[in-house]
């Protein structure tokens, strides 16, 4: 039985050695332990150990837009950001609405990152994401899809969305909905409010999101069928979700690091790097979302990693595509929430690992014997500058480009295999 010992690491504020046997967690031994020369060891150099992160919402752009990102580079960024699994949305070209595309994604994963991180495709909910007829959901599940979503092109037809939820539930699969009323949001490019009026930009009101969230919640209650709400951005949606959870309606929700730290002021100067959909909202919304992740109303933090090439963002604001490249920076950004006392590290492990694993049926690592040896070593004090060089994603479209963040993933193990290390052991 192969044994690996990760020495000199912190788990739950205790210093010690993590022991991995046969690619699963064996034990954590506090304090110093004697090692013999035959032990396969890795010096954790005082890093904090966390479970491998699971991102339920990324865009890896392959097939079709490999100049922005491909499965190889996207999973490389995932490894660098501390992720062991990512769920890739279906808006590729061709759209992931058939088993051939799903299988291609899984094969590319196997070729480039056989030991992980792992991509789990999210199949299109409707054919070609057009919102008119259901995609072959059973075929997509059989091919390896983990959930279904129309993401950026949310289904507006309430009847079709209801049927999609019902059909998916027969397959024991979850529907993920990007909550947006396309009429209220039409042509909008930022949050509707004081700043959009000032900048002369068409706004997207919060009701474009919250009305659709209300629809989904009411359908989930009526059908007694679960639904997962993607990248929630505003206070009204949080209030609706809180109400739903009080009523035991089977609704779960995610938000993203950018909605927890930045508000609409980030788009001042027509900063296309901060253009994202749903848009960055107001300080009030940021506070509501922070409270929601603290209280468990929102149980998952996902990146909505949306890479775009620099030339695509170097255009007037309204022409720029929506999206922030998030895999490289997500953990560092969220660690600021821990330092600010909004959540503790245990909460963060829940939001970025345990809860997504449970919801989507991945093995959960709580560092108990037999748990998967998917874990990361994090230097909580390490400051690093976000630059083109320090990001592993092909695309560098993040508002924190040029900024210095604190907290860095120093090593990433998946299934007991080291897939990334920034620790110098020379």
């Amino acid at each position, binding site marked *: 039985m192969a044994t690996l010992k990760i020495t000199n690491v912190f788990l739950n504020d205790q210093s010690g050695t993590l022991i991995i046997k046969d690619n699963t967690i064996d034990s954590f031994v506090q304090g110093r332990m004697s090692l013999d020369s035959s032990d396969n060891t890795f010096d954790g150099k005082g890093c904090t150990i966390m479970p491998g992160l699971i991102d339920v919402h990324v865009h890896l752009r392959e097939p079709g837009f490999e100049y922005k990102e491909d499965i190889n580079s996207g999973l490389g960024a995932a490894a660098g950001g501390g992720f062991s699994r990512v769920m890739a949305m279906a808006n590729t070209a061709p759209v992931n609405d058939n088993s051939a595309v799903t299988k291609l994604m899984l094969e590319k994963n196997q070729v480039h990152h056989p030991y992980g991180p792992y991509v789990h495709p999210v199949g299109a909910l409707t054919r070609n994401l057009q919102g008119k007829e259901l995609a072959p959901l059973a075929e997509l599940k059989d091919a390896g899809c983990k959930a279904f979503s129309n993401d950026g092109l949310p289904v507006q037809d309430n009847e079709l969305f209801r049927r999609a939820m019902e059909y998916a539930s027969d397959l024991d699969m979850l529907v993920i909905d990007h909550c947006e009323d396309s009429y209220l949001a039409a042509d909008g490019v930022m949050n509707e*409010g004081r700043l959009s*009026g*000032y900048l002369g*930009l068409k706004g997207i009101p919060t009701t474009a999101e919250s009305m659709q969230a209300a629809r989904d919640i009411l359908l989930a209650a009526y059908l007694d069928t679960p639904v997962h709400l993607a990248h929630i951005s505003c206070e009204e949606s949080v209030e609706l979700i809180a109400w739903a959870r009080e009523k035991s309606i089977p609704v779960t929700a995610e938000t993203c690091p950018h909605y927890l730290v930045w508000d609409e002021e980030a788009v001042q*100067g*027509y900063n296309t790097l901060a253009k994202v959909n749903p848009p960055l909202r107001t300080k009030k919304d940021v506070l509501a979302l922070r409270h929601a992740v603290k209280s468990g109303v929102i149980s998952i933090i996902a990146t909505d990693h949306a890479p775009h090439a620099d030339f695509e963002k*170097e255009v007037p*604001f*309204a022409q720029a595509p929506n999206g922030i490249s998030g895999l490289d920076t997500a953990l560092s950004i969220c660690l600021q929430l821990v330092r600010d006392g909004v959540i503790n590290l245990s909460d963060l492990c829940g939001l970025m690992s345990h809860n997504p694993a449970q919801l989507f049926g991945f093995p959960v690592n709580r560092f108990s014997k037999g748990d998967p040896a998917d874990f990361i070593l994090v230097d909580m004090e390490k400051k690093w500058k976000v630059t083109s060089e320090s990001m592993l994603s092909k695309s560098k479209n993040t508002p924190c480009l040029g900024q210095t963040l604190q907290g860095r993933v120093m090593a990433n193990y998946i299934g007991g295999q080291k897939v990334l290390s920034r620790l110098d052991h020379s």
Partner: protein
Amino acid sequence: MNWTHKDLLDIESLSIEEIQHIFHTSSRFIEINSRSIKKVPILKGKSVVLFFAEPSTRTKTSFDMAAKRLSADSFSLATSGSSLKKGESLKDTVLTLQAMKPDVIVMRHNLSGSAGFISKHLKCSVINAGDGWHAHPTQALLDGLTLNQVWHSNFTGKNLLLLGDIAHSRVARSDIKLFTRLGCNVRICAPRTLQPSGVDTWPVKVYNNLIDACKGVDAVISLRLQLERQKAGLLPDIREYASRYCLSRHHLCNAGPDVRVMHPGPINRGIEISSELADSKDSLILDQVESGVAVRMALLFLYCTGNKNEQEIQED
């Protein structure tokens, strides 16, 4: 006054002193424009590119005439005749233009922030001739110059009403910034569907009844209504809009005694302003056009020559 700005993107970046300097410089050019020979050589050898990525008649002609009267060489470029039509990015288009070494690029574009966007990539000066709903600083300056002449440089306490489609108007945004800075009390009047988001944070008093809005006003600037607003669901129909918001003589019965009316053009007569009022003695609409050439001459002079002083205008 030394002119230290590289670009003119909006009104916010100008101090009151700089605005007054532009008015003062413009007034010298008004005099030149009244001569029988209206051309002076002060910008001889300078190159001005008129890059209008959105249709324009009066602003483009006004800049073109301003450049020619100062002896600058002006070159026109429109989207239809440019590589933008072939899919070239705006950045690549303006970098190509820059390689030809113009002194100033005057740009109009249908997207807010586009003038600021190109200015970040260009070493030459950029003058914003209107970007989306965001800003139209030269229009505001010509509106300001027009009223500066009528009100003899005294803006303090004057009541100014902006009427019409405020939400989608770059003229309104720039006028509000200019006239509040100069000391006017600014009002806006529009149906709620044509008021901008967050208007309660703007330094204006908001009306939706035109009779009320006109009480005691010293000037009304009626704005152009894009007829597509009806199709966008912002208005029931143009006739109903006109019945509520078309400025006519009877709305001005309780206005100030010397009330003046203005419009940036082009006018939809009978929809934004009655034909009778547009052509009346109280109308400054053609004065605005005249001021426009002078203001643009002043701006081209300032942005091409930087720290040259007024003496040189006289010498030329």
